[in-house]
């Protein structure tokens, strides 16, 4: 079986401006929604108490809300979690009241109407922890960005490093934009997914850059645009199959992983889709505009130590 029978190189770079415009507009939209709507942060970040209770029959959310309002708790969110029988209750931290008291109170109140209600899970996070988590998240992001840039600059050239990071950071912003637009809950696992996506979609750019470098060595007569087009065309089949396979796994998580893994899998799905787009259309184009040349990489091959000596083409360059 073969999905991709591409006879000629596809002129990706001819339309680079159009592709990047699409990308830029999505990016701007994401930034707009991030600022206008903000992220719907989970209890882990904001501090507060979260309870998950389960009823034997589908729960009446309005009744649950009424009961909680009766005991004087305000600003409480009540929603279904996974199934109609499971209810998630989020409460902000109340001064002078421990979370144990709070959750106990709520549970007693709920038990007055349905004695079969079961406490499945509670989670309480103090406000100081939330701030730290947010700070740590940003630190991790910075670490990933800097680490990947240094590695790519060493392995390729700074222009590639910059191109890859711009392309993939914009994926991250777009994922966040989705979470802001739909007001999906942004929790710690989602943060992990976002960072994993960053590492993963840089892979894509690396594979294409690797091809570009190889093409520079192999096809001495092609110009930069042709070389990039050829590199993308010859790796497109792999790009799509790999992402397809990863997406199969993520899909399985989306279907079987339950509510806890739902947003995690969703973040990965968005990341994978935009990851293809950005590494194929954006990263290479930015590298092209930054002015990559044959000399940038040839110079490297002279001193390259990690290069494979068995590569029949590495000798042909000199």
């Amino acid at each position, binding site marked *: 079986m073969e999905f991709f029978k591409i006879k000629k190189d596809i002129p990706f770079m001819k339309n680079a401006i159009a592709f990047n415009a699409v990308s830029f507009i999505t990016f701007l939209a994401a930034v707009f929604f991030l600022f206008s709507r903000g992220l719907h942060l989970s209890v882990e970040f904001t501090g507060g108490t979260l309870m998950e209770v389960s009823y034997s029959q589908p729960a009446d959310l309005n009744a649950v809300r009424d009961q909680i309002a009766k005991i004087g708790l305000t600003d409480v969110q009540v929603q279904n979690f996974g199934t109609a029988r499971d209810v998630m209750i989020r409460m902000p931290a109340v001064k002078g009241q421990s979370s144990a008291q709070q959750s106990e109170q709520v549970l007693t109140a709920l038990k007055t109407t349905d004695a079969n209600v079961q406490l499945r899970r509670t989670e309480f996070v103090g406000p100081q922890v939330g701030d730290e988590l947010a700070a740590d998240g940003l630190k991790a992001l910075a670490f990933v960005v800097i680490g990947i840039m240094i590695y790519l600059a060493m392995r390729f050239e700074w222009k590639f490093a910059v191109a890859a990071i711009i392309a993939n950071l914009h994926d991250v912003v777009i994922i966040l934009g989705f979470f802001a637009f739909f007001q999906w809950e942004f929790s710690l696992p989602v943060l992990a997914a976002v960072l994993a996506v960053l590492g993963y979609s840089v892979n894509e750019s690396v594979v294409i850059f690797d091809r570009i470098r190889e093409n520079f060595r192999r096809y001495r007569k092609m110009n930069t645009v042709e070389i990039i087009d050829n590199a993308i065309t010859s790796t497109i089949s792999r790009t799509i199959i790999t992402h397809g396979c990863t997406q199969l796994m993520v899909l399985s998580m989306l279907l079987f992983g*339950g509510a806890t893994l739902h947003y995690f899998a969703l973040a990965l799905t968005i990341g994978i889709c935009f990851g293809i787009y950005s590494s194929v259309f954006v990263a290479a184009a930015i590298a092209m505009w930054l002015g990559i040349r044959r000399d940038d990489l040839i110079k490297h091959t002279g001193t390259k130590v990690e290069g494979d000596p068995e590569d029949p083409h590495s000798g042909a360059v000199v």
Partner: protein
Amino acid sequence: MNRYPFWKYAIIVIALLIGSVYTLPNFFGEAPAVQISAGKSSVKVDALVQERVEQALKAANLTPEVLSLDNGSLKVRFDNTDNQLKAKDAIQHALVPDANDPSYVVALNLLARSPAWLTALNAAPMYLGLDLRGGVHFMLQVDMPAALTKKAESLAGDIRTGLREKNVRHSGISRNGQTIEVRFRDMATLEAAQRVIQDQFVDLQTTSAPDGADFKLSATINPVAARRVQEQAIKQNITTLHNRINELGVAEPVIQQQGTDRIVVQLPGVQDTAKAKDILGRTATLEIRMVDDSAEARSAEIGSGPVPFGTERFLERSGQAVIVKKQVILTGENLTDAQPGFDSQSQEAAVHLTLDAKGARIFKDVTRESIGKRMAILLFEKGKGEVVTAPVIRSEIGGGRVQISGRMSTVEANDTALLLRAGSLAAPMEIIEERTIGPSLGAENIAKGFDSVTWGFVAVTAFMCIYYMLFGVFSSVALAVNLLLLVAVLSMLQATLTLPGMAAMALVLGMAIDANVLINERVREELRNGASPQSAIHAGYDRAWATILDSNVTTLIAGLALLAFGSGPVRGFAVVHCLGILTSMFSAVFFSRGLVNVWYGRKKKLQSVSIGTVWRA
């Protein structure tokens, strides 16, 4: 050209063998067990205890499947929960006669059902996190400023005594936050006082400033001493928590320091959070009262008369009754420290108590007036009092330093000091994070994680086999090996597996297949360009390797960042993610190449390879 030297095959076989052995325990599941561990620092679980347990079980007509003693805890495994519960009762009865004073913790637990030879190899199933097995997680923040304030308070008292001994006149000592301020009428006395403080109190650093007509000397705890105070405070709080949790009867509690001022407590299997929190937050209180030595009290002590008015009857630890007056002289609030040690003259084991300034003054007055009488030191826990010791007062005791000695072994002195210190936490703590996961949710999470990995795996391998034919089969086998090795490494390291960890497992499998896709696409491309099958395989693997390495390093960078900065669920994800990337490099490249070499490597005149359709331009 596609042959591996013998040693490479040997590595593959060895890796597979080790991987299988360490993965194996995960398939045996867990069996109910009873776990016995020490409930006090003074008792040990040893061969003697094992004998007692064996006898108790024999008496109850129960035969355990396995009985093993390791790391100071005795584990007894049974074939069903009925026997487990019966055994727990029997053992509890034999080892813990008094439920209020447990020397041993007898708890229900689950033990791996793996055969003895696996256990001997240290092969254990993966360690499941709380979200998979259910339980309670707490993070407590120790209030360090409070610990320092307490220390400053006690130092202020010491300075007062020190200055009086050296005859340095001051016009007032006060504590302002963590700073001790001493006022003087003239500069000369201030300097004299400064010398005294510098000589006697190495923990303090002083600054002086004029204050209106007076001169003010400010002393603060220096950074080194402050750090020491904080370290001691957190250590003491951890010890206290250990003691309290022992009463809950949790099989494997985790109590760890996190950072400089936090403590993480994890109680797997505990469902009653309210009780857990109650016990964690409980403060035992210390009280010092006078013993009633009147004739009525004496008769009440031996149980032949009623307890006199205004007194209460308490038991000593030996079981001896003591009649104590209701009036409280001092409480634990005035106690700043209790350390085990030795009497300087008799060399007997003793406990040294340090009282704060107020406590010292009261203590001095009381002891002066009551020489020859007995004084009782009581500890109240769960609203129940116990007399720790009731010594006779021999002389007036000033300076706030009290020594309790007589009829005590070193171990008892240690225990008493600990109890007294435990009576008041070194510094107050606050729960800043709390998670409770019900057992049904834990089991559901395991099922969900397992389903995600299984179905994802099935889908990916099905696709690979159809799309790449035999090479797809090789890739799928390599992916299975990746999973095997990952589970083996996780079992070996006993890293905590959480639900995000299971998600990472699925994700890493999805990413690991990338390496095989790269290789297979490369081989096809070589074939398309007219290379012979053997050289296409060779070139495909070689050229793909550099790319695979690059892409794995970038993924690994992200994984390491998560590991370094992540906490809780993120960390669980990151550990599996990083390990999975490492194992994938072995399985997807080295191992799959081995498979291909075995299959195709020997065929000199290979005409075609089964890698799906290769179209020619």
